[in-house]
């Protein structure tokens, strides 16, 4: 598809989003002091995102291997699926931001614009088929993230978090770029498919120094992805950033960039390395490497979450653990594994955003994110407590909630690999779920089993919070019992790159 017109049509979602960003900027400027300004901005942003999602459906022929602008941007079902997913994540981010008092009203326009830019970056990251595009996407996600993390300018925690984020982000970007440059040096191309062919050729030959260079390049590239999805050992920024960032943005950050990073990671490894190559004798053992990383990531995340007194921080660590669960399937790299990650992410979007929404609602009323603020929530705000319980048990992976289905597919994909190593990975995965249960159940316990302290009155839910909690909780329940349509959508979309 070298035709420029067709290429432009293929990035229709991005074009719609760009238009929306411009409209929102203008509206934000024109409405300067009007009282309805944040609402208008939110409505326009949401319309833009919905329009982009609609444009995804209009993109022609999402067949396997299609791409636009030469082989820069993939327009296969995989890319389109992830675009839709991250736009949805941004959609929730926009709405949550409007509901939160942590985003000052006069700054809300900036918040929404940055979020839309981020959404576009994530879409490009998920669709990149070229190392350069990949890097651009990554930076386009990172830069607005830094700003949004430090959005509460007067807050020291927020600023500290932003600085940490920038430093670790820059370091891992640097590592990644160095890895990319090695890949370019080895194969003379930035195109992932061509790199893949080069790797196959290289590994088929006798071991040379180039094998070592490839290993180094892979490790360095992996660093960038690990940073984006907050996998060990590049997870250190995660708890501080999640705690310091405004809660609505944390909710977004824990899902959106993670989904986009996961998509890029999958595409990078499956296009460039390809599962069959790795299975072959003498292949680069990236599966084992990723598998070990997955086990370490979930274990570190879960153990660190165990004793957190700050609920936001606990959820931050739990999101590290969830990245670990998904990485198990990435390590397997089969078609089933790709589909299971694709199933997990929308479910994760629902339940994790829901949990953060509950945290936000409690914070709005009590001003606290600490576990103690949740005492007696079951009687102080029953609806909030019940929906929070749904999200937490879903995150744990207990039926009949959607989180169980997500985990079930992940574990199924891992066990289907059928190697003893992956059987061990699966067992480590389920044992981690036990640890996770402990800290999620601890929050439920605080909410239901402990009595509210002195002066801790009812937590009144605002009507928008109630609506949003319902919007997130209902599909979390329904997908736990009937996920057939979602699974078949993914089945259709996953006809991926090769």
């Amino acid at each position, binding site marked *: 598809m070298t035709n420029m017109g067709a290429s432009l049509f293929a990035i229709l979602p991005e074009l719609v989003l760009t238009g929306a960003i411009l409209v929102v900027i203008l509206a934000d400027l024109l409405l300067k002091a009007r009282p309805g300004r944040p609402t208008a901005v939110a409505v326009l942003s949401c319309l833009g995102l919905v329009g982009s999602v609609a444009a995804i459906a209009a993109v022609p022929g999402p067949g396997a291997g299609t791409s636009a602008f030469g082989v820069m941007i993939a327009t296969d079902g995989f890319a389109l699926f992830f675009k839709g997913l991250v736009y949805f994540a941004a959609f929730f981010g926009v709405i949550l931001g409007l509901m939160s008092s942590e985003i000052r009203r006069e700054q809300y326009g900036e918040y929404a614009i940055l979020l839309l830019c981020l959404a576009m970056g994530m879409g490009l990251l998920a669709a990149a088929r070229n190392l350069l595009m990949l890097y651009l996407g990554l930076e386009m996600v990172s830069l607005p993230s830094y700003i949004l993390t430090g959005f509460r300018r007067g807050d020291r925690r927020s600023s500290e978090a932003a600085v940490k984020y920038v430093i670790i982000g820059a370091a891992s970007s640097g590592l990644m770029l160095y890895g990319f440059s090695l890949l370019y040096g080895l194969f003379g191309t930035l195109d992932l498919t061509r790199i893949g062919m080069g790797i196959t050729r290289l590994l088929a030959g006798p071991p040379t120094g180039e094998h070592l260079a490839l290993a180094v390049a892979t490790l360095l590239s992996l660093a960038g992805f690990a940073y984006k999805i907050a996998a060990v050992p590049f997870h250190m920024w995660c708890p501080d950033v999640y705690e310091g960032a405004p809660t609505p943005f944390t909710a977004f950050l824990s899902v959106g960039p993670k989904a986009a990073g996961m998509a890029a990671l999958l595409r990078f490894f499956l296009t460039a390395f390809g599962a069959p190559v790795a299975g072959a004798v003498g292949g680069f053992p990236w599966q084992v490497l990723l598998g070990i990383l997955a086990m370490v990531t979930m274990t570190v995340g879960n153990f660190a979450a165990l004793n957190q007194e700050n609920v936001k921080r606990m959820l931050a660590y739990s999101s590290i653990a969830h990245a670990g669960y998904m990485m198990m399937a990435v390590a397997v790299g089969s078609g089933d594994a790709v589909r299971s990650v694709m199933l997990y992410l929308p479910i994760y979007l629902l339940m994790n955003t829901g949990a953060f929404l509950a945290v936000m609602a409690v914070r709005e009323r009590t001003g606290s994110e600490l576990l103690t603020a949740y005492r007696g929530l079951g009687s102080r705000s029953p609806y909030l407590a019940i929906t929070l319980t749904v999200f937490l048990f879903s995150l744990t992976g207990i039926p009949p909630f959607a989180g169980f289905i997500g985990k079930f597919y992940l574990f199924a994909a891992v066990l*289907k690999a059928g190697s003893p190593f992956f059987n061990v990975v699966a067992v480590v995965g389920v044992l981690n779920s036990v640890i996770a249960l402990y800290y999620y159940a601890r929050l439920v316990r605080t909410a239901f089993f402990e009595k509210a302290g002195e002066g801790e009155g009812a937590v009144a839910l605002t009507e928008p919070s109630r609506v949003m909690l319902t919007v997130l909780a209902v599909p979390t329940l329904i997908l736990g019992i009937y996920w057939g349509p979602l699974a078949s959508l993914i089945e259709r979309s996953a006809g991926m790159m090769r």
Partner: protein
Amino acid sequence: MTQSTILSLVVFLPLLAGLALLLVPRQRVVFCRWWTLAAMTAGLVASGAALSMMQKGAAGMQLVHRVPWIPSMGIDYFLGVDGISIYLVLLTSLLGPIVVLSAWRSIGEKVREFHFLLLLLQAGILGAFLSLDLFLFYMFWELMLIPMYLLIGVWGGPRRVYAAIKFVLYTIVGSLLMLVAILYLYFAHHAQTGMYTFDLLRLYGTELTGPQQVWLFAAFALAFAIKAPVFPLHTWLPDAHVEAPTAGSVVLAGVLLKLGTYGFLRFALPLFPSAAHAAQPLFLVLAVIGIVYGALVAMVQTDIKKLVAYSSVSHLGYCVLGLFAFNISGFSGSLFQMISHGLSTGALFLLVGMIYDRRHTREIADFGGLAQAVPWFAATFVFVTLSSIGLPGLNGFVGEFLVLVGAFGANRIAAAAATTGVVLGAVYMLWLVKRFLFGPLVHEENRMMSDLNGREVLLLLPILLFIVYLGVHPGPFLRRMEPSLHATLTLSTPGPGRVETLRMLQLSTGSLRGSGTGWKAGAEGATAPRGASVPLLPATAPEFTAVVPAPGVMDQVLTVTASAFAVSASAVGNGVAR
């Protein structure tokens, strides 16, 4: 109500009633109680209807309800009942309304939520007993977790938080490893047959290598051994029992624990027969330890509820012992013991709850001489105690006796050691009766206590009737469960008989017919004639029928009545003498 939907009704009636309850305003406490009672009673009627629709003498699954659920994964909504599960379903349904009645006065706060959780729990238990699709089973199995966690944690005693989290963590460790094993089995089955399915009757036929069987059996057995509980994994039970509200304890002891032993019978043993046989010595030893240890620990308890909780450990030891005897009398005894333990221990927890409601203490030392103050209560308590210690003529005896006969056939030493548990059981229960009900009435405040009221009599009466009925006339029950138990026993025995039995089971259940798009067995199913419910003759396992043919059970029961009575009597003498 047609044949195929009755079981769905049994499972979903409580669930739907529970969801409807959430629409009721929370202030309408009385309505919530009546609504739940009505739903549970309707559930009991539905279970009774299911029993009446069943064909007697058939071994296979009946009243099958099967709908493709997620065809791409081979997941079906697949319910069915046989001579094994029907009794556990009936027990669950019977205890349902009783539990609601028992909570009538004692639950005063968050009444609507309490009843919602009870109904949810009921649906989960019934679903787990009736599921024939492993995925569906796992869903129901885990569905029980959250309601029980909240029931203990919100309405429980002083250490409820600790007990609730301990219960959940113990249970989930086992369940999650079982989930991995289920998935492994699923893929192993696919590797052999090219078909993805969670259909239990199909998975029975999976050929596994020795090490595979051992690992998978270990994972399943761990989950069920925690639930049952088998000896070293039992420590969650006393905590959960003591802290749970009466209704929770009754459900927990009455049916939740049986899911563990049922799991062995339905899943772990027939799916992995070689590994199960290899593990027989281990489980015989653990069961005997559980029986004796549970009884000894029960003896020294000062809290009545804790005493009853430890007696459960001991009694469930018999169930496990019977299962791992791998003969028909062991199996029938085990299943019978599951039912009668549900009744007797359920009744004991109810009675303890009644006394706690009045006095807000459960320390044995705070009582004594209650027979003078509350004679009806005392009489009932003595009656249930006698049932619990296995007095011939009451339900407890039949199960224990059959289990011991079965165990004797498997391992004489184990049987002999387990028999001491019978004596010890009499000791701790009768000693409790002596300190609790008889002797001088030292605490004056106990004199003012009111005796059983109408509601309490009403909720105890059905249990008492069944205790007598099962005790004096166990024949029909045993005969009805026997064909299914025979089939399960054959499946649980590695050997050539398995294949034939399995095929008959599959035929009678329609498991060979393709149902969803995920089925690729059209040719196989087409050639097989579809017998509606092919009864499995016990002849498939002749070597086991020799031990104790069930139709003759009553004779045997009667012949040993005298000797067992003597044992009990001497224990009574010892206990009272102290």
